[in-house]
């Protein structure tokens, strides 16, 4: 699905990614773990196409296509979705209007007409139920005054509505209590298929009990220093991140 080779990236002149290699195939779930400052969020921003980040070396290929010259919205049209660690508040734009705009923008990019209103309504109902989101919520301004759990559930609601090929979940578990975590994980698991892929970025192993990865990679100082199966996550949980620094 996505092949990243020797990716180097910097922000405001500071080097954060120092040669990332990652190959994610359709149907797979990869977890990326690492201590704070290792470059986890940078990696997700770079894949999603945030303009503040500059790729200085290396390539990213989505289904064989080079992503480097493609804008953030075009990457979304090609099927990339980023669940933000800190979802942004957009006062005045309701959750419903936002998701309608996003869906129709994607349809337009593929030469399709707007989704008919009743189909849209049905889909919204279905997906909000999946994430246990109350309908009253949908008319609130996007992320404004939402709790951490509400924000993250809203991110996965958007993922469910947009049906991306490659989802990157950036610390989706941060700030969530166990109940919210279960709802979010359940939502993500329902969306897993053999045709899409998910990259779960997390600091803690806890989320991976619920969203079970096929592969776990450890990021340190902007490089992937070790890869393994889900057992690697348990090993990190037991030992912490210090022993990783010796491998780097």
């Amino acid at each position, binding site marked *: 699905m996505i092949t990243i080779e020797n990716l180097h990236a910097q922000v405001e002149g500071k080097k954060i990614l120092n040669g990332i290699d990652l190959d994610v195939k359709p149907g797979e779930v990869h977890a990326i773990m690492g201590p704070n400052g290792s470059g986890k969020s940078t990696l997700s921003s770079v894949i999603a196409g945030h303009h503040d980040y500059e790729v200085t070396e290396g390539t990213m290929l989505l289904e064989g296509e080079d992503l480097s010259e493609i804008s953030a*919205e075009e990457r*979304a049209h090609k099927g990339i979705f*980023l669940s933000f660690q800190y979802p942004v508040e957009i*006062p005045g734009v309701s959750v419903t209007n936002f998701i309608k*705009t996003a869906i129709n923008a*994607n349809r337009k990019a593929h030469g399709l007409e707007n989704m008919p209103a009743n189909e849209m309504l049905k889909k919204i109902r279905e997906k909000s139920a999946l994430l246990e989101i109350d309908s009253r919520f949908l008319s609130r301004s996007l992320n404004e005054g939402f709790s951490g759990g509400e924000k993250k559930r809203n991110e996965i609601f958007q993922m469910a509505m947009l049906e991306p090929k490659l989802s990157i979940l950036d610390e989706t578990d941060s700030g969530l209590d166990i109940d919210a975590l279960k709802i979010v994980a359940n939502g993500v698991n329902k969306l897993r298929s053999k045709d899409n892929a998910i990259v779960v970025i997390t600091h803690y192993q806890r989320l991976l009990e619920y969203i079970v990865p096929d592969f776990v990679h450890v990021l340190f100082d902007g490089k992937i220093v070790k890869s393994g199966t889900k057992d690697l996550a348990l090993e990190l949980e037991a030992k912490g991140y210090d022993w990783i620094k010796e491998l780097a």
Partner: protein
Amino acid sequence: MDFKEKLLASHIAFEEEIDLTDPIHQVRIDSLKTFEVKGFPTRKDEAWKYTSLNTLIRKDYALFPKAETSIDLQKVKKYFLYEIDTYKVVFIDGVYSPFLSNTTHDGLDVCLMSAALTKAKYRDLINSYFNKIANQEDSLTSLNTSYTREGAYVYIPKGTVAEKPIEIIHFFTGEEKSLWLQPRNLIVVDQNAQVQIIERHQSLKEHDVVTNSVTEIYAHQDALIDYYKIQNDLTSASLIDNTYISQDRNSNVKVHTFSLGGKLIRNNLNFHQKGEHCDSTLKGITILEDKQHVDHFTLVDHSQPNCESHQDYKGVFAGESKGVFNGKIFVDRLAQKTNAFQQNNNILLDDKATVNTKPQLEIFADDVKCSHGCTVGQLDNDALFYLRSRGIPEKEAKALMTYAFANNVLESVKIPILKKRINLLIAKKLGVNLGLGL
């Protein structure tokens, strides 16, 4: 002869058309003297620091409208709130149009200033209200007063709720290549009465038209006034709007100003609270592009205790447009327990757009709550990226964000069809696709 000289000289021709024995006429003469002494404001005047009238007054204008030109109703229907029943006072190039209007004397008076100024039955009312709150030291206001003859006159008697909104509309046909008009409106809402008024200026084709209007509004005890100004004219039209409002105790007056089109607009909006427990609301949405210029100069004069005022002006500026906001709040020594809130937030969409915003609070009482917040900024980059990461193209994402920014001022619009219209207008201006039930 420059334009000021022309205005002074033409007054003689004006006098030939009116009744010189009318006591109002002395007011006109005195006002002309004030204008003669002060002249047009310049950039040296603090209140006009950011807004220059030079380009406007360098031109030559016809001062007296031609005889009534007629307009096909179908052509102008869209400028009315045609979906609902309203009273209307309509002027074409400054001349009253009976055909397009819908005046009344049934339970309330919605009619013409020219009638109110000349007929005996209005004599007392005119003596009590005419030119009593307008700022007589202000030169443009005085200029208008010196040429006062026509405009809208509204009187709502005690306890009456005007069941239909009143539309005051000025159309400009372009028959005169350039026109300087000075309508004068008088709105009196008696005790416990209510009214909604919509005022609009609209050119039907490009030509130089300048309107220097004065509106005096009196809200008696317990009165409720909801006033909407729609300023969405062509880029050849300019407007200097001088509105003076006097509020008696317990009255509630709201003025919404939508500045979406025109060459140069100057809104002088003045609230004078003369009784306790008054509530004053001043709100505005300004969306400009190209070389448009809008200046909101507001004054809320809290002279009595226990009153409230709320100001919320949002501005979006593209191209090389210019926005100015000067919000003066005066709190008298006696005006304890005043709650005065002022907010002016602006977004610059392009490098060459500029905004000058200045809160001006003069507070002489010590038990008050007064807040002010004036901001100028650009669209939040993180929010933009968030929208783009969902596939919303940059241009649409910017439009959606600016729409959301400006839109909340609409929440307090009480006429549903008007709210919908302005909503659509704003969305159209910002290029937001509204096929989504917004």
